[in-house]
């Protein structure tokens, strides 16, 4: 450890104070909490990777189906009547859900801003959960920047925001209960 004391930088000798040491029991307890958070984060990342994998597979299948259908067309005759061809999946079908999902997400963002101002402290284990949810929302946002029309991503965003809102509301209820009992 590099310790170089310049008297002018430490005129009161604060660096001479002994380092404070926690009990080994407390160190282990701290590690148990941190390890749980690391493991929870790893589980969520794996789950997210599986969902992304399925999404990628679904997207590739769609591309292959469309490519096959276009290749198989006999010639440039009448356009395909999609109503009579339910086996053809198009990217336009779910579009009518997207505006609702986006509006819901925006509304939830406003709620979250208000809730964050009201909640000023949470137990450590809930902070872990909060950080994880925010991380997942961040990952969904990153995916949305590449696929802004993906309804599934918007739905996932709304679902995560709802979890975060519940987290804050539950904490507020706990705080209200605590104040009421004083």
């Amino acid at each position: 450890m590099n310790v170089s004391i310049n008297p002018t930088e430490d005129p009161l000798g604060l660096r001479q104070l002994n380092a404070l040491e926690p009990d080994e029991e407390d160190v282990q307890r701290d590690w148990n909490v941190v390890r749980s958070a690391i493991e929870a984060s790893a589980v969520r990342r794996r789950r997210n990777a599986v969902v992304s994998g399925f999404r990628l597979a679904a997207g590739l299948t769609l591309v292959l189906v469309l490519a096959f259908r276009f290749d198989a067309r006999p010639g440039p005759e009448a356009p395909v009547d999609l109503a009579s061809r339910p086996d053809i999946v198009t990217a336009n079908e779910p579009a009518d859900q997207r505006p609702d999902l986006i509006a819901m997400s925006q509304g939830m963002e406003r709620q979250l801003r208000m809730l964050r101002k009201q909640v000023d402290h949470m137990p450590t284990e809930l902070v872990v959960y909060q950080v994880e949810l925010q991380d997942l929302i961040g990952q969904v946002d990153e995916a949305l920047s590449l696929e802004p029309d993906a309804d599934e991503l918007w739905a996932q965003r709304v679902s995560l925001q709802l979890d975060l809102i519940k987290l804050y509301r539950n904490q507020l209820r706990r705080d209200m209960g605590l104040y009421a009992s004083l």
Partner: protein
Amino acid sequence: MTGSAFDIELDDLTLARAKRGDVGACEHIFRAFHSAAWSVAMRLCQCPDTAHEVTQEAFITAFARLSQFRGDAPFWGWMRRVVINHALSTLRRTPRSTVIELDEQHTWMEGQQERMGDSMDLNAALAALSSDDRVVVWMHDVEGYNHTEIAAVFGKTESFSKTRLSRARAKLREWMEKAPQSGRLNEATH
């Protein structure tokens, strides 16, 4: 920056493994830096339970954000900044009624003096500072941060850092110098 308890070398392999989520590597980092983290958190927050909360949250954040550590500065400096940010954030969440501002409450000081005996040592004097003064003087005189860096942590100007440092040092000096002569702080202040 010198004189910091965080100044511990960390090998690149352990860091790389931790970035990939290797729990063993994370534990190695945790055990290497825990003492320094808790000690700083304790000095700044002056409460063992709060220091443990700050330490836990700091490590959780550090491991969650490890991918953002680019390696263009020593890891220990980055880790230390995470701990200090969490300590400051925790101090700011503490209701004002539980934070003692000693330039407003000399009677509290007198009680503290009586409990300590004839002298107020540096530990007690540091504990008696306001949280902002304590954080600034610790960051500057012990951890070696400059005023620009301290101002950035607080989201304020360099002038804030310099003023707080000057004030904190003056108070510490006063409390430590007067106490051994008179035995009672209230005699020296009147």
